[in-house]
């Protein structure tokens, strides 16, 4: 067992085939299990890129990534999908809920892909909505929810398969300050329940709530 939830070694990412963008230029970091970390840095300097590579949403062009000790760079697409489903929950700035499904169904859909006991998981879906304080919105469609509520549903969905690691890319980036506060309260509660949380933000105020701070500039850690 690794003591690190996440490790990267000399992570490189070059986008594009014509005009190339060198988004990450050798990032090495370690994030301990159960920690609450923040990645901060100016716009366009590679924060999202780093998070997407860690979460196995995209492939790096160099270096290695370990999730819970597993070298995900060497996994094929199927195995990588399994790791995503079991070990990682994602929260996006733009919520990314399925528009034609209710809040509850969105959470249940994420559970479809896990190799876990179905009966346990379906009871979990309602419990997760309760956790983010949205029991009464279980049957609401995304179009009927506010930004803060949407992000809380997305957070509940990221917990669907009880992953040890949650990755959040500017989870409060589209929210007003009241909603931002609500969402942060929920995130901190979830952290207390034992999850490793990594989130990206522009806001120094939010960053100050983190235990570990990674500052990224021009594709490199500062």
């Amino acid at each position, binding site marked *: 067992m690794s003591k690190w939830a996440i490790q990267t070694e000399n992570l490189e990412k070059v986008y594009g085939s014509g005009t190339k963008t060198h988004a990450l230029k050798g990032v090495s970091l370690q994030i301990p299990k159960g920690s609450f970390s923040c990645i901060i840095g100016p716009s366009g300097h590679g924060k*999202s890129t780093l998070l997407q590579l860690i979460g196995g*949403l995209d492939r790096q062009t160099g270096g290695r990534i370990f999730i819970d000790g597993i070298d995900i760079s060497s996994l094929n697409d199927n195995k990588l999908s399994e790791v995503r489903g079991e070990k990682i929950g994602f929260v996006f700035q733009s919520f990314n809920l399925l528009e034609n499904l209710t809040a509850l169904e969105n959470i249940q859909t994420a559970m479809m892909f896990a190799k876990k006991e179905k009966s346990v998981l379906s009871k979990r879906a309602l419990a997760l909505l309760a956790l983010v304080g949205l029991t009464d919105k279980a049957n609401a469609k995304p179009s009927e929810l506010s930004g803060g509520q949407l992000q809380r549903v997305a957070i509940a969905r990221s917990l669907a398969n009880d992953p040890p690691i949650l990755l959040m890319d500017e989870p409060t980036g589209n929210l007003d300050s009241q909603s931002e506060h609500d969402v942060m309260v929920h995130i901190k509660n979830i952290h207390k329940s034992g999850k490793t949380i990594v989130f990206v933000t522009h806001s120094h105020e939010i960053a100050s709530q983190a235990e570990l701070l990674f500052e990224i500039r021009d594709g490199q850690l500062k």
Partner: protein
Amino acid sequence: MNILKLVSKNLLRRRGRFIFTLLGITIGMASFVALLSLGDNLRAEVSQQAEDLGADIIVMGRIDCPFVNRAVLAGEQLPESIPREIVGQIAAIDGITASIPYLTLGASIQGIPITLVGILSDDMKAHREWNIESGAFFADENALSVVVGSGLVPRFNLEVGGMLPFRGQDFPIAAILQETNSNDDISVFMPLNVAQEVFGLDDYVSFIAVTVDDVTHTERYIAAIMDVANLSVSTNEELLSSVLLILGSLDMTLQLISGVALIAAAFGIINTMMTAIYERRREIGILRATGCKRGMIFQVFILESGLYGLLGGLTGFAVGFIVSRVAAPLVQQNEFVSILGNPDTAVVFSLPLLLTIIGLSVGISIVSGFYPAWKASKLTPMEAIRNV
């Protein structure tokens, strides 16, 4: 939440597109069902007509082609081309039990075309085993009257003693025949001599129906008839198979048409699926980000197109079934008979046919779904992030 629920929710998202795509498959499958059973019905109908004719050997004019054969079976008008004395010469051949001449003429009642048949009345009555519904049969071979089939009676409000005009001359209806379930029901009969005179024809007939005492030796009788007259002589079976042959090529043409309809439907599905996948690429990315594997994305879209096939197969079968019931009598018989209606020849529901149609429909749809589903499964989780 399971895949089926996810898929059915997706299916109904764009109702207009769903309905139009389904309509495409429905039309394709319906045309297939309708044409399939039409072909079958035509075959059954022709076989029935051949049986009704009750002849072992048919003697026709020298033109031997399937369309003449078809006209004989359907009781349609044929040119008079056989000298009448041949009838007697054939009857005189050893082993021949009957030689029945038909002079089939085009005529009309109240402007609607019908067939008028000139006959040797007693021979014909015995051969066809006619019973008289009302009235009295021809008194002799020169009676200036007609006998009508039972099917014409309700259609034209006919009754014994009523007058029917042919070639400017009025003919009293001497008798109405009992129903025979053959072409006789929709024909008007007249003594041969009278028919020839009224229509100003020489002493010729259209074709001769021959029966023999030993059907296992028809070849021998055919040779004997050919000796008497240089005419086209064939067995009832030959006649039937030559007509079935044209039906076979007709069948092919019909199936080709429905094949084209099915291909069009298949492209309809491909088009719909490609559009759906383009619209939902962000959602596919979201599913992939939450741990969904490529294979499952593939399954989701194959299932979606398969559902189109299942629904389209059901609706297509239903529509095709109804259409074939309405259209079969119109197509398989001449226009006039369809007015009388002939419920015996309507399509029968069959479970194997239904299952075949659904299997075909689902099969075509799934094959159509392959390329779109494969495209969908190639999308990466990054689609969720890029397409905000």
